[in-house]
Structure formats: structure tokens, C-alpha cells
């Protein structure tokens, strides 16, 4: 695998542990990868640690959890020892995250426009009118036809697809270098999914951002990303170029690919995953 000369993000031996009454639960167990200005997909089922990996990079791990890593660096800056204040400056400005469901992740009592302007004013010295102009331009960039109208709407007044576009606008307005998208289209209708992915794809390509695309959908990720990491039980079980998905070696990856019903294939019963305990070792 070609690792870029100076990676945008370096993750080495990342571990996220949640203490519980019955002992520690390790959600992420030694994940390592380097990310350049490329599209990296992280795939796994629920509980595989894919979202916790994204959250740890973003600095959104719950307070009671323990994070450890040999190295967790954004460019030259060490994220592990960085004071919370600096981390806050980074978040939203240089590193941004798109979450799954706009219904829950947008502020319900603030108009969409105000939320976007708030992001901008937190990170840049900018007048309110200039911020509004930038927000409107950004809403237009995510292909919202009537940005003026959407600017003054509340999240409950727009559809899921529109809300997700507003979230993309909000996350990209400060021009981040790294974007983490955690299941950005899973809550949307199939026909809307493609539109949103298309917008995301163009913006990421135009702005030369690094993208981490987290999803449970192996096929979707491989069609969208350059490189795919497959996670199982908190570990990376396989890493491969998205184009070579058909040559996947690990039985888990092959099983995931195999168990999806597709149009035109007549397989009754469907093959099911035979989970081997050694995968989780």
C-alpha cells in the first residue's frame, strides 16, 4: 500500500476501552492506518468499533472511556496530548464529521442558517452579513435550489435528504482538511442516497480533502472509496484497494459480500456468515 509522503492523519495502535460493571470492554483494539488526501472506507457490522474509531479521531469519545495509542496525529500535531481548547479549534475547522441522521444531529430549536453561521463565526473573524453570504453560497454548493428559504427553516421543516445536505454544508463551510462521514446516507431513502453521495463526492474531490467513510455497507463503500479497511470485533481484519474487493482474502470480508441478496441471483437459502472465534483474536 502506498502511504503518502506526509500523511494527513496517522493512527497507530489505537485502543478505546469502556469500563463497565463487568470489566473493561475494548471497542477498538489496536487499529493502525495512515490517511493521505484520499477516500478511505471503514466497513464493519454494528459493534465492530468502526464508529468509535471515527469518534476517537474526532475527539468525541465519551468522558469515561479510555483512549490509548502509540500515535494519533493530525499532520504534525499530536491529538493525544493536545489541550482540549486546541482540540476544539481543530474540530469543525480542520476536522469535521457528518453524522447519520439529520433528525437527531441538527439543533432542533435553531434555524439551519443560524447553525451554519454559528460554525463559521466560531472559527473565523467574520461579519454577520459576510457569514450569511458564505452560508448561502455553501447551501447552493450542496445543490439546495432555494438557499434563502432553507436558510430560515428549522430542521423539522425539511426532508431527510435536505437535512443531510444542510449538515454537509455546515461541516464543509470552514474548509476542513479531513472529513469523517459516519453512515452519512443510512437514514435516507435509496433514491436520495445517491444524490447526497454525489454531492459529497464532488465536494471532496474539488477541495482535495481526506475522507473517512464509515459504513456497514461494503458494496457502497467500495464504490465510493479508494481504499477499504474491514473491521471485526475492534480490529482491522483486512485492508484492500476498493477496486480489488472481489479478491478479498479474509473469510469475514468474503462472507459479508456473499450474504447480500441481489437481483438476478437465485440463491436459496442465502449463505450465512460462519463466525470463527479466531477472527476476534
Amino acid at each position, binding site marked *: 500500500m502506498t502511504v503518502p509522503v506526509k500523511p494527513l492523519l496517522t493512527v497507530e495502535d489505537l485502543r478505546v476501552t469502556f469500563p463497565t460493571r463487568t470489566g473493561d470492554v475494548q471497542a477498538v483494539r489496536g487499529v493502525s492506518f495512515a490517511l493521505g488526501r484520499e477516500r478511505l472506507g471503514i466497513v464493519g457490522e*454494528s459493534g465492530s468499533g468502526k464508529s468509535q474509531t471515527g469518534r476517537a479521531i474526532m475527539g468525541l469519545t465519551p468522558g469515561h472511556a479510555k483512549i490509548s495509542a502509540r500515535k494519533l496525529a493530525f499532520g504534525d500535531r499530536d491529538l493525544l496530548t493536545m489541550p482540549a481548547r486546541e482540540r476544539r479549534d481543530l474540530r469543525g475547522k480542520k476536522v469535521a464529521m457528518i453524522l447519520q441522521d439529520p433528525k437527531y444531529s441538527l439543533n432542533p430549536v435553531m434555524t439551519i442558517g443560524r447553525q451554519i453561521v454559528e460554525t463559521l463565526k466560531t472559527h473565523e473573524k467574520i461579519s454577520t452579513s459576510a457569514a450569511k453570504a458564505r452560508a448561502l453560497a455553501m447551501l447552493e454548493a450542496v445543490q439546495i435550489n432555494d438557499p434563502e428559504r432553507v436558510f430560515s427553516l428549522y430542521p423539522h421543516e425539511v426532508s431527510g435528504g435536505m437535512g443531510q445536505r444542510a449538515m454537509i454544508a455546515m461541516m464543509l463551510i470552514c474548509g476542513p482538511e479531513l472529513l469523517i462521514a459516519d453512515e452519512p446516507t443510512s437514514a435516507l431513502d*435509496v433514491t436520495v442516497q445517491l444524490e447526497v453521495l*454525489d454531492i459529497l*463526492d464532488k465536494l471532496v474531490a474539488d477541495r482535495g480533502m481526506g475522507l473517512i467513510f464509515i459504513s456497514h455497507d461494503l458494496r457502497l463503500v467500495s*464504490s465510493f472509496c479508494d481504499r477499504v479497511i474491514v473491521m471485526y470485533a475492534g480490529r482491522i481484519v483486512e485492508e484492500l484497494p476498493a477496486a480489488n474487493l472481489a479478491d478479498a482474502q479474509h473469510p469475514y470480508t468474503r*462472507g459479508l459480500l456473499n450474504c447480500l*441478496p441481489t*437481483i438476478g441471483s437465485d440463491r436459496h437459502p442465502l449463505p450465512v*456468515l460462519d463466525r470463527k472465534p479466531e477472527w476476534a483474536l
Partner: protein
Amino acid sequence: MTSALSIRDMVVTYDEFAALDHVNFDIGTGESFGIVGESGSGKSTLLRAVSGLASFDQGTLSVNGRPYSGRKRDKEFYRTVQMVFQDPYGSLHPRQTVDRLLLEPLVIHGFTDIETRINRALDEVGLGSGFRFRYSHQLSGGQRQRIAIARALILEPKILLLDEPTSALDASIQAEILNLLEQARRDRNLTFVMVSHDLGVISHMCERLAVMKNGKVVETVPRKALENREFSADYTRQLLVASEGFRRG
């Protein structure tokens, strides 16, 4: 083919909004019939209206030749028609054990051989009696959906309404649940009406499918037509393209 479920000109309105707009279906005994559409297309409303969870304002519904009105349903109806819901986390009572969950329909319908039926129902969905006295929060999503299926099958219904039964589950668990449903259908000669937004799942499970949009049926096609792309509606094509995943263009 006799028709197990016949729906004529069914209309469901919420205030002024027509959630179902003159929908017609005839589903044969032993058939597996799929309904696809996106949110707001009326596919779930249709199942709720058929099952009696929502009332319909116009039209007729008949099950195995017996007509039913919009509101009242008798016990006989629920012996014949059962439903499995989308969200296994929301459709099981959080403070009842599996035993209690499965017991309730049996008591309502006056069954006497309760012990054997509960054990058999658990075995049939591949869980075994070890799960009998657990609460639903002690089960995984796939196990919960198995319990929901066991609860639906325990009354030995003839028609099973499935509202997105696997969309909340991981892909590998989805395959297990789909296999289980197919097995149950073969063993009991059930009639399925399955709703999903996933064309892949519907074409795997159903012989015939209807595409719905805005409360109307856009078209009804056999599975083969989907494979050979022999359909007329542009909307069906859109859904098919969407189901094939992202293409950089």
C-alpha cells in the same frame, strides 16, 4: 389460484392527506408478494390498514373470502393474519420475558397446550428453550427479530405481514432472518406480504412485487421482469439504479 388477500380501492386519509389512494391487490394463497417504495409511499400504511392497526376509510378487504371492515376485527382474523415489525427493539415489551411475550397470544386465543407450543415456537426460530425466560434487552437485534417471528407464528397464521423485517439488522444477520422466513413459509405454506425499501431483498423473497409511490401503486411486476429489466415505470428504473450502488459519473 385462490386469493388469500384481496384489497379493492383501499383509501386511507390522515386529515386531508391521502396516505393510500385507491390501492388494489390480489394476493394468492401461498404466494410471496413484495411491496417496495420509499418513505411516505404508503407501503407501511397499507400493512397497518390490512392488519387493523389503522382503519381505512374506503374500499374493501377480504381475507380468504371473508370481508372485513375498516375498524373491527374478530379473533378469527388474528388467527389468520399476523405481522412482524421493522424495529425489533421497539416491538417487544421491555418488561416481559420471552415466555410471557409468547404466552399472551396463546391465552387470548384459548390454546391449552401452552408448554409444547412455546417450546416448539422457540425451536422453530432456532433459539431453543434457553431463551425462554430472558428479557428482550438481553437479546441481540437478530435474536429479538427471531422472537418477534416466533410470536407471529405461534398462532399458526396463514398470512404473515412483514414490515421491513430486516432493515434494522446487519447484513449477515439479515441473511439468517431471510432464510428463517423462507423456511417457515415452505413448512407452513404461508402467504407473505413483505414490505421493504431494498429491491435486492424483495427480489430474493418474493415472486411478484408492487412498486408504490405517493400512496399509489406505480406498477406490479413479476420477479423475472425485474431481472430482465422488463418494466415500464421510470420510477421502478430509478429504484433499481439506486439499489445498484454509487457510480462516479
